[in-house]
């Protein structure tokens, strides 16, 4: 016997979020990282300065020589979700696969299909500039050691959608959750901000804590911020977050921004950073 009401339910929820590849690509914020300042879209080359050296984003345009034009969908999903390269080696977590691993295979596959329709750009990848003691094989250990439990799934459908947008696609925690000395997210300080974010930027606390977080913002303020970058006092965000607003949150559907807002207002409040 087929539990058909369940099937209908599943079909229904899949249809509700049947996003196309372009939408998912924006919601996951791939563009800004894989495009250098004034460079060709997706051709890579943008530098990331970290305590572990300078990393350069690779070319993910469908160029067959210098990009990912010859990759299979399987290889792509392994890279995006498991941090595993086609040759079996492990990626450094500047590539936020610790977040993308929470994406569904269907969504990852759609991003792959979308990328394959983009203009191929011939641009050879730049070698990372890492300290002498850092090797790729160490990332295998890192993956085994540092990839801990993600934030729990939500039973409420809107909150669950919000969690998916925040964690699996928007990878907000990659900047807003502090890391330990090995660069792993500290789950017990989820979204609580850090003084040592990317590019040594201070990244604010976005939990609903009233004094240090965004607990004083109302739902409308937060939705408007995600849409336009305006802070409740009339100031406009800048630096890295302006990229996130431009490339990701402003491009979401109203209902998706709303789900993100509901989820962010429901997560545990932490003081700090």
């Amino acid at each position, binding site marked *: 016997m087929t539990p058909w009401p369940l099937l209908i339910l599943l079909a229904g929820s899949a249809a509700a979020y049947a996003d196309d590849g372009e939408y998912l690509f924006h919601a996951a914020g791939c563009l800004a990282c894989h495009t250098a300042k004034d460079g060709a879209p997706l051709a890579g080359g943008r530098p990331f300065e970290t305590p572990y050296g300078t990393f350069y984003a690779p070319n993910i345009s469908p160029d067959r020589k210098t990009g990912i034009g010859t990759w299979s969908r399987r290889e792509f999903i392994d890279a995006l979700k498991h941090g595993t390269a086609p040759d079996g080696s492990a990626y450094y977590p500047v590539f936020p696969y610790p977040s993308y691993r929470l994406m569904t295979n269907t969504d990852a596959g759609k991003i792959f299909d979308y990328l394959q329709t983009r203009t191929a750009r011939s641009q050879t990848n730049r070698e990372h500039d890492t300290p002498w003691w850092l090797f790729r094989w160490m990332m295998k250990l890192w993956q085994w050691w540092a990839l801990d439990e993600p934030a729990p799934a939500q039973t409420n459908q809107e909150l669950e959608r919000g969690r998916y947008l925040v964690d699996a696609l928007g990878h907000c925690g990659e900047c807003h959750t502090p890391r330990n000395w090995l660069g792993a997210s500290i789950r017990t300080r989820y979204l609580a901000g850090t003084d040592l974010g990317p590019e040594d*930027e*201070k*990244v*604010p606390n976005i939990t609903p804590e009233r004094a240090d977080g965004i607990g004083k913002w109302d739902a*409308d303020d937060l939705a*408007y911020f995600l849409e*336009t*970058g*305006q802070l*409740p*006092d*009339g*100031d*406009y*965000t*800048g*630096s*890295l977050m*302006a*990229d996130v*607003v*431009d490339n990701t949150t402003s491009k979401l559907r109203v209902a998706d921004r709303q789900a993100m807002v509901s989820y962010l207002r429901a997560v545990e409040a932490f003081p700090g950073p």
Partner: protein
Amino acid sequence: MHKTAVIAAALIATAAAQAEEPENYIKYRQAMMSAIGGHTGAAGQIVRGKVSPEGALAMHANALATLNTDIGSLFPEGSDFGETRAKEEIWSDRAAFDKAAGDAKTATAAFAAAVAAGDEEKIGAAYRDVGESCKTCHKQFRQKKN
């Protein structure tokens, strides 16, 4: 009497020269930016339909246009150290910065014009353009909060 006048003039000149120290512009421009932020935030409350105080939108829109007439001049050469979030690129890539300042001037003038014309739809769009011009400049030229 002549002597007093000369001395007074000299004192005033010194005071003026002191006031012109480039780093003194840091506090001044932050206050100016806060004023711009204040009017933008207040106008937003009206544009988003949260409040509708009589005649206030035109006041905010005109103030924004006036305050944005020449924000480039708030960033003189040499005002790049101390308690400031201004990025070095303001001076190393001055043409791009001046363009961003010009875009804010254009956007705030268009917003004031839309409010004067009273066209609801244009007001909403023009307000968004104002916000875009702020965000674009902050993205390139302002550091994170310390």
